[in-house]
């Protein structure tokens, strides 16, 4: 299985602050990778850089064999990288259906269209004409995922879809993931909820202050290893 | 373990050596300018009067747009109202040279209810709204036949003066108005209001939440700017000796103000001075080429707005750290602290 996405020596800055430092990552096609880490670890920056809304300072991003480091975000979306951004960010003046159709503005060949999304989240069927403003957080998240799917992406980036949602709703959203993955989509998800990440992903990556501190399959990673990596307890010398 | 020296004391200063020199220098410049009517011809003082008029208007527009964030395309309303105020006052027996200063007060009074309407719009819509309001004043005054109606009227009460003396007094009045505008701006910005304005300019909502009376600060600035524009309008009438509504209320004045402030450096006190000098120089150089110089000014303004948004002075000041007029605060002793590791 070839690597769909490769990050090599990636360093990303927010102004003068280094959000990611010299990061390497390889994601095989058809697999699911979860990125975990404390707030400020660089997880969202990582996704935004892969999607193209943030420019790296150094390093390369290779997608499907193509160097996309300099490719603008809208073209990466057309090439098959779709980000479901933090905070959902539906288009408030558009209806549910229009939000989905907007996601298909640039689409590739594939199984995802409005009926397919409705099959995934059946409640959408009756509320297609509702304004996106009137949806609850969980519903907005579902539509946001649907909007990204409408582009038939090869790589789906999910940024903290559980944020601000009740556990029951989060569970329902994650139930949809296997269907998405079964369609052949590679998924890279960022998740605060570590147990959810371990349940869903093939491999897990833990970030701390912009660097990888732990990586492996859920089976390999014990709770203690994750805990110490997550909070940086394995570093010598205490706090600087 | 590092040894720590006694912590350096911190002090807050308003100005440094540069600003003292600027103060002295400005005083010298004003004195020299005041003496000029005795030295040079009236055509030279006439050009300087134009420069002073433009500078006064621009400093006021800069106060509005660069410091209070109120971009108005309607300041010509007060230029016109000021001119007509002087005209009306002269009809009622008030000496026009005095009338210029009264016109400032008249415009501030008119500006108060005007602001109640204008402030209902925000951003770009505020800009065009002020233009509409200027047009309303324009049209209203065009209907006043006592003041000359649509074709305007001449100011006759200065005809007793010897022309050279009249032009000299006009020059001094222009100098006084301009100096007052610049000085007024400087004092305003050094005051608490100035600090409030900087906060509003940076982040209006945050400023409001720290107790800055945002609405009142903006309104006060609007009144001051209108008064300044009004006085300048009075100066224009006195120097031209006649006024016509189409020209005194022309948006061309705002075009000049915008050019001068944008090219010179918006949000700085030194910027408009530099911009006014550049403008008058260009005007004098290209006067014979018809409207080409206006096209040149327009292109220059666009280029500066996009590629040099801080303006000429602003870019220089940002790069070099030089500030002639000290309207900010600086903390002394911080470098020492850093060196000692505290």
């Amino acid at each position, binding site marked *: 299985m070839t690597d769909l996405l490769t990050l090599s020596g990636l360093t990303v800055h927010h102004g003068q602050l280094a959000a990611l430092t010299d990061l390497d990552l390889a994601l095989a096609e058809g697999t699911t990778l979860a990125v975990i880490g404390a707030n400020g670890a660089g997880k969202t920056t990582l996704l935004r850089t892969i999607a193209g809304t943030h420019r790296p300072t150094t390093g390369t991003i290779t997608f499907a064999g193509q160097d996309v480091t300099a490719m603008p975000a809208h073209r990466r979306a057309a090439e098959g990288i779709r980000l479901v951004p933090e905070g959902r960010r539906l288009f408030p003046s558009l209806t549910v259906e229009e939000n989905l159709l907007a996601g298909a503005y640039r*689409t590739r060949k594939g199984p995802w269209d409005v009926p397919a999304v409705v099959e995934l989240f059946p409640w959408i069927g009756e509320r297609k004409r509702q304004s996106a403003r009137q949806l609850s957080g969980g519903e907005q998240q579902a539509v946001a995922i649907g909007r990204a799917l409408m582009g038939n992406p090869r790589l789906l980036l999910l940024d903290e879809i559980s944020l601000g949602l009740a556990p029951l709703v989060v569970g329902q959203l994650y139930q949809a993931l296997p269907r998405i993955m079964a369609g052949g989509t590679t998924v890279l998800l960022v998740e605060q909820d570590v147990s959810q990440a371990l349940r869903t992903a093939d491999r897990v990556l833990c970030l701390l202050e912009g660097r990888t501190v732990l990586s492996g399959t859920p089976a390999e990673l014990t709770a203690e290893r994750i805990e110490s990596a997550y909070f940086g307890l394995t570093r010598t010398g205490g706090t600087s | 373990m590092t040894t720590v020296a006694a912590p350096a004391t911190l002090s807050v200063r308003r100005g440094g050596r540069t600003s003292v020199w600027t103060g002295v220098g400005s005083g010298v410049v004003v004195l020299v300018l005041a003496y000029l009517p005795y030295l040079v011809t009236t055509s030279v003082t006439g050009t300087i009067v134009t420069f002073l008029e433009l500078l006064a208007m621009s400093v006021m527009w800069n106060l509005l747009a660069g410091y209070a964030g109120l971009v108005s395309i309607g300041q010509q309303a007060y230029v016109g109202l000021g001119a007509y105020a002087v005209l009306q006052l002269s009809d009622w027996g008030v000496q026009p040279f005095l009338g210029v200063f009264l016109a400032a007060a008249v415009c501030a009074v008119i500006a108060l209810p005007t602001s109640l309407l204008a402030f209902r719009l925000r951003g770009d*819509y505020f800009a065009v709204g002020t233009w509409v309001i200027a*047009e309303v004043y324009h049209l209203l005054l065009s209907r006043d036949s006592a003041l000359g109606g649509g074709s305007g009227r001449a100011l006759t009460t200065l005809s007793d003066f010897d022309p050279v003396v009249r032009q000299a007094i006009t020059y001094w009045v222009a100098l006084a108005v301009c100096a007052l505008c610049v000085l007024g701006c400087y004092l305003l910005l050094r005051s608490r209001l100035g600090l409030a304005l900087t906060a509003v300019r940076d982040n209006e909502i945050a400023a409001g939440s720290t107790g800055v009376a945002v609405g009142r600060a903006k309104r006060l600035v609007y009144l001051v700017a209108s008064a300044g524009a009004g006085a300048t309008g009075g100066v224009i009438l006195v120097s031209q000796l006649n006024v016509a509504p189409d020209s005194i209320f022309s948006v061309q004045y705002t075009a000049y103000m915008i050019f001068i402030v944008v090219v010179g450096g918006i949000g700085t006190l030194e910027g408009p001075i530099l911009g006014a000098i550049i403008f008058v120089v260009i005007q004098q150089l290209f006067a014979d080429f018809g409207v080409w110089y206006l096209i040149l000014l327009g292109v220059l*303004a*666009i280029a500066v707005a*996009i590629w040099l948004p801080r303006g000429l002075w602003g870019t220089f000041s940002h790069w070099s750290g030089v500030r002639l007029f000290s309207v900010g605060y600086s903390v002394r002793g911080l470098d020492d602290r850093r060196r000692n590791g505290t």
Partner: protein
Amino acid sequence: MVWVNAIVQGLLLGGLYALFACGLSLMFGVMRIVNLAHGDIAVLGSFLAYSIIAATPIGVLGATLIVLPVFAAFGYLVQSGLLSPALRVGPLSTLLATFGLSIVIQNALQQGYTGDTRALDVGSLISASLRITGQISVAYLSLITFALAVVVLAALQLFLSRTGTGRIMRATADDPEAATLSGANPRHVYGVATALAFVTVALAGLMFGMQSSFSPSIGPTRLLFAFEAVVIGGLGSLWGTLLGGMVLGLAQSLGAQYDPAFTLLAGHIIFLAVLAFRPQGLIPARRTA
């Protein structure tokens, strides 16, 4: 009776104003830009048509068919060359850039055509009118302009609500970055919006030029009318723009009936009244700005 005639003329004039205004409304809705050169673009269109008609045997209709696509391209270019760089700098820069553009266009036209007024020759159509009753007749040109306004507004509305590009334009207006994530190139979307704005305002300029005379300096007044129509009607509503245009036209027409010198003032006063008592306009937008 003469007042009824004034009412009819005023309402029809609203069509012309709506045609002037819809481009301004679109640009503000999508890009948050008030194009201060908006009126001057219309005048530029009138002069281009004038030159085409003077230099070739084509006539008004042919000139229109040339001017409109030219202005679409012109709009797209102005967007990418001038407005996009200005947008990146900040909100003040777009205001200043379009203001500078207005100055440049007005003075370039002044230089090229002198300040004399011109008109677009439509032959006998200029005086052809439809007689409704004994005292009321409406000029065919007014009717055509009004009909065109309705058609253009309906087309714009359909474009925005039914087409993919229109939908993504609304999406980009809501959230440019999220639209980028769906594959939209904001520069292209803005370019299309500006192109549409320029085409509609050029059409307005042409229709105006057929009914009245024009000169290089009338641009700013057209901008003010367009602006007033948008504000009276309500920011963010295309059909509100038609309503706003009609209210403005009605005010001006009735004002003119009372006293010809009162025409413009009447319109401004209605604008200020709306600003004072109903600032959100007659048809307020549902979305918060």
